[in-house]
């Protein structure tokens, strides 16, 4: 590795603009004539719209237009869709209810958009939005997924009369029942995975600009995948043909999944810009984000695990009810199915697994992928039940896990996934050593002396990243392929631009991606620029989510670099009158191996563009593109150990130690990888201890601000001990697995296992707030 190549702890190129206040986020964009939008949103969770009167609002100061859904429909703008088809076990397709970008006849959750107001200033737009008179006829409300499945529950969509979207199965039910029949021990649990609000610090925003001279639209938006946004808005929502629609996602202030989807606001602002003839900007306020960003998780599960007399796992049964909210968001259907049930084998050799998942409409915000997306839910189920089983069997939780680890690869699970590589003993050992697991009992006794309850809990997770082989996801119902594209442009002076379809919104692509070129050609990373986030610059891409930018995005870059390297070597061989096979590129020089004959990198580039002396028949230029479609998912895995101390008088939990030992395969920049883990851990610990999303029985979101929804703050968290072991991933050229979601996947069960260990009561809901922990302590007495 060079000082800036693969594996180097390189400081981030992008930092300078962020630490000096020069970042350019969507809300920072200003274009001539720009006006401001406010949305009129439903105050009711479920109601018929009897009438919408806009006259008063329209007459208010500064108002340019008040537009409603009927006008949108009249202009042919389509309904929002879910892009992944799931079939129920009886073969019927999922029941997708219509989602109009602006509701026309019915509203289905508090925050459902009804109209847009465009005015000179944001304040005037908001004042006028309050003056839009919508008459509602309230309908009965259901917010809880179990209630929504009860006979007689309010019907939310006519397309799904019983609120059931699909009833889906994975695995062999008969084989699993047979395995359970032979069991020496069965552990059963009911497990709830709490609903979360993603809360990227930058609220969603969009600026729609219609150019009547060119009949062309530009959409600035807070997106993790601008090309997918363009594709979907063009192909499904009829906003504009792709060649007439440019989508730009500039600096984006965090995503965590919530900025994957195409929401009503982008569509409506683009349409409204044409309708009114002015550029239209909308920026969510935080409460709007709470109400109308896609939420995460919200599963209710019953699980059973069967062991033989030697404590080997025989089988696993899982029944889950997943709340998808009022509408099916873009990828909502794949989260509780192919990103969830396929991971239920965890790190263990389980001969038989059967999972059933029912997804349900309720009068709540749509639910979709949030950091980890399905995999945290699977890990929570499996790692809670493994810990519980160990307690019931009176064996060490570490040893029960170790006994059942998968140790030979490839390993085909009974739930589709084929693990390609891993060493679960290595991460378990590393974590136990770092956590001084062996010395815990002594610490517990020490804590007891000062009246504190100390507990320890672990979680051994696996996840599937590098989404995903296109043909595989296509066969499972995905509406898109999940490859990635890259283009490497070497300029005539040897500097390099790498165009990528991945999108960075905190992940540091401008640095890590440049490190690939530095490694390959020995050029300084300052001479490598990463271009992303603009459909006019990068031809096509699938964006950043599912820890895919490393395994898929960087693999595409590696492929393009291969092609550039091959051509550069041909040119150099010609210039140096040597055999192409003898050419090596090192430290910025192109050399004939074993000789002192060399030519500087920039001269090879220059030769490619002057084209005065190229090999016969070679095209000028040094620019290559590649599409990379992965051959398999990647499987990061690891072990997280949490140690807590609880004050039994108040129920307050302090995380006194958190260890994460992760195997992410080859690591390009350890500093950035550690940062990803820290952030994931904070979100996972936040889910376990702090973050609760509460709707009342009328469907009002009670936790719709930072006054009510507890975001993890600095004093809620410890400093983390993070470390890596490494098994190279055989499924991509760089050997990388992905690291973005691991922290949020592994940590919640480790925290809850630790608390339940401390308080000697296994019945504990997330978030384990002081009140909940205090009640659990007293319930166990």
């Amino acid at each position, binding site marked *: 590795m060079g000082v800036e190549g693969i594996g180097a702890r390189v400081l981030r190129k992008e930092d300078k603009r962020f*630490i000096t206040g020069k970042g350019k986020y969507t809300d920072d964009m*200003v274009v001539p004539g720009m006006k401001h939008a406010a949305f009129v949103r439903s105050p009711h969770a479920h109601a018929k719209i009897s009438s919408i009167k806009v006259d008063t609002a329209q007459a208010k100061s500064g108002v340019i237009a008040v537009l409603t859904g009927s006008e949108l429909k009249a202009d042919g703008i389509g309904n929002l869709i879910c892009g992944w088809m799931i079939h129920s076990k009886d073969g019927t397709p999922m029941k997708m209810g219509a989602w109009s970008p602006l509701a026309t006849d019915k509203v289905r959750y508090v925050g459902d958009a009804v109209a847009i107001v465009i005015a000179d200033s944001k304040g005037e737009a908001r004042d006028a939005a309050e003056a839009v008179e919508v008459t509602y006829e309230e309908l009965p409300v259901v917010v809880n997924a179990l209630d929504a499945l009860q006979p007689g529950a309010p019907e939310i969509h006519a397309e799904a009369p019983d609120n059931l979207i699909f009833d889906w199965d994975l695995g062999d039910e008969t084989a699993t029942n047979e395995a359970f029949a032979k069991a020496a021990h069965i552990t059963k649990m009911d497990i709830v995975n709490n609903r979360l609000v993603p809360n*990227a610090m930058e609220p969603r925003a969009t600026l729609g600009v219609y150019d009547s001279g060119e009949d062309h639209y530009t959409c600035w938006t807070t997106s993790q995948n601008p090309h997918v946004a363009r594709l979907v808005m063009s192909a499904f929502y009829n906003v504009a043909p792709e060649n007439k629609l440019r989508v730009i996602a500039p600096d984006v202030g*965090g995503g965590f999944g919530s900025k994957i989807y195409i929401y009503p606001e982008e569509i409506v602002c683009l349409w409204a810009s044409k309708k009114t003839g002015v550029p239209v900007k909308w920026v969510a306020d935080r409460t709007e984000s709470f109400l109308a960003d896609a939420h995460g998780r919200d599963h209710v599960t019953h699980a059973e695990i069967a062991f033989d007399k030697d404590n080997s796992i025989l089988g696993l049964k899982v029944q889950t009810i997943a709340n998808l909210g009022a509408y099916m968001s873009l990828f909502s259907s794949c989260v509780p199915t192919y990103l969830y049930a396929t991971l239920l084998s965890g790190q263990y050799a389980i001969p038989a697994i059967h999972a059933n998942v029912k997804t349900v409409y309720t009068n709540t915000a749509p639910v979709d992928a949030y950091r980890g997306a399905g995999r945290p839910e699977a890990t929570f189920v499996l790692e809670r039940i493994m810990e519980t089983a160990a307690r019931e069997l009176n064996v060490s939780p570490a040893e029960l896990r170790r006994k059942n680890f998968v140790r030979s690869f490839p390993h085909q699970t009974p739930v589709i996934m084929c693990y390609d590589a891993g060493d679960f003993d290595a991460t378990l050992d590393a974590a136990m050593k770092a956590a001084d697991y062996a010395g815990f009992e002594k610490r517990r006794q020490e804590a007891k002396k000062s009246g504190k309850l100390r507990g320890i809990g672990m979680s051994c997770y696996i996840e599937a990243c590098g989404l995903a082989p296109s043909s595989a996801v296509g066969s499972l119902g995905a509406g898109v392929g999940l490859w990635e594209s890259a283009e490497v442009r070497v300029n005539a002076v040897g500097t390099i631009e790498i165009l990528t379809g991945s999108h960075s919104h905190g992940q540091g692509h401008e640095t890590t991606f440049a490190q690939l070129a530095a490694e390959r050609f020995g050029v300084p990373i300052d001479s490598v620029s990463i271009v992303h986030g603009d459909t006019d610059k990068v031809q096509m891409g699938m964006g950043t989510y599912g820890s895919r930018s490393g395994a898929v995005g960087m693999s595409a870059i590696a492929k393009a670099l291969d092609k550039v390297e091959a051509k550069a070597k041909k040119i150099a061989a010609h210039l140096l009158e040597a055999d192409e096979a003898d050419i090596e590129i090192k430290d910025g020089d192109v050399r004939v191996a074993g000789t002192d004959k060399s030519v500087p990198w920039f001269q090879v580039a220059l030769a490619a563009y002057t084209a005065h002396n190229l090999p016969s028949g070679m095209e000028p230029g040094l620019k290559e593109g590649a599409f990379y479609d992965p051959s398999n998912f990647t499987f990061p895995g690891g072990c997280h150990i949490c140690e807590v101390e609880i004050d039994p008088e108040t129920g307050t939990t302090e995380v006194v130690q958190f260890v994460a030992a992760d195997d992410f395969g080859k690591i390009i920049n350890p500093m950035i990888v550690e940062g990803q883990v820290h952030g994931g851990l904070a*979100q996972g610990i936040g889910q376990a201890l702090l973050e609760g999303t509460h709707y009342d029985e009328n469907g009002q979101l009670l936790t719709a601000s930072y006054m009510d929804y507890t975001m993890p*703050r*600095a004093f809620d968290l410890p400093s983390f001990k993070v470390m890596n072991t490494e098994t190279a991933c055989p499924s991509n050229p760089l050997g990388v697995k992905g690291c973005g979601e691991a922290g949020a996947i592994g940590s919640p069960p480790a925290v809850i296992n630790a608390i339940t260990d401390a308080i000697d009561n296994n019945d504990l809901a997330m978030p384990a707030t002081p009140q909940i922990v205090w009640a659990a302590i007293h319930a166990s007495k």
Partner: protein
Amino acid sequence: MAKVELVVNGRAVKGEAEDRTLLVHFLRENLGLTGTHVGCDTSQCGACVVHVDGKAVKSCTMLAAQASGSTVTTIEGLSLNGELHPLQAAFREHHALQCGFCTPGMLMSSADIIRRHPEGLDEATVRLELEGNICRCTGYHNIVKAVLDASEKMGKGAEKAA
């Protein structure tokens, strides 16, 4: 409309704004200083922290008219003469930022924390003092390290440099 006169990052500025205009909006929209961010509506997240007359203030809790007559430093004015402030350098060195959205407020708050603790800082104090600033990316681990490091490096000169 209110008349607003400020000294921002060393330069005298004048402007008019609706009476209800918050300082953060005046900075962003009237002055084009978009480094100061808005991350919430309830003065919780701290993305909008600036210094008003030398003290950290959430610029979403103050009307522009209220601030009139004050001296304001925003993130754009934290570094002088093209050199990074020690905190900015420490944030980069310790990878204390990811998406960068909370970063300006974090930096402005941290500068104030260091100024108020000339005796030096420890981890627990930094974590407590950062209560008013939310970061969703970093888990605070590296932010805490960066603030401690900057505080150490600024040493006795902390008060002056902050």
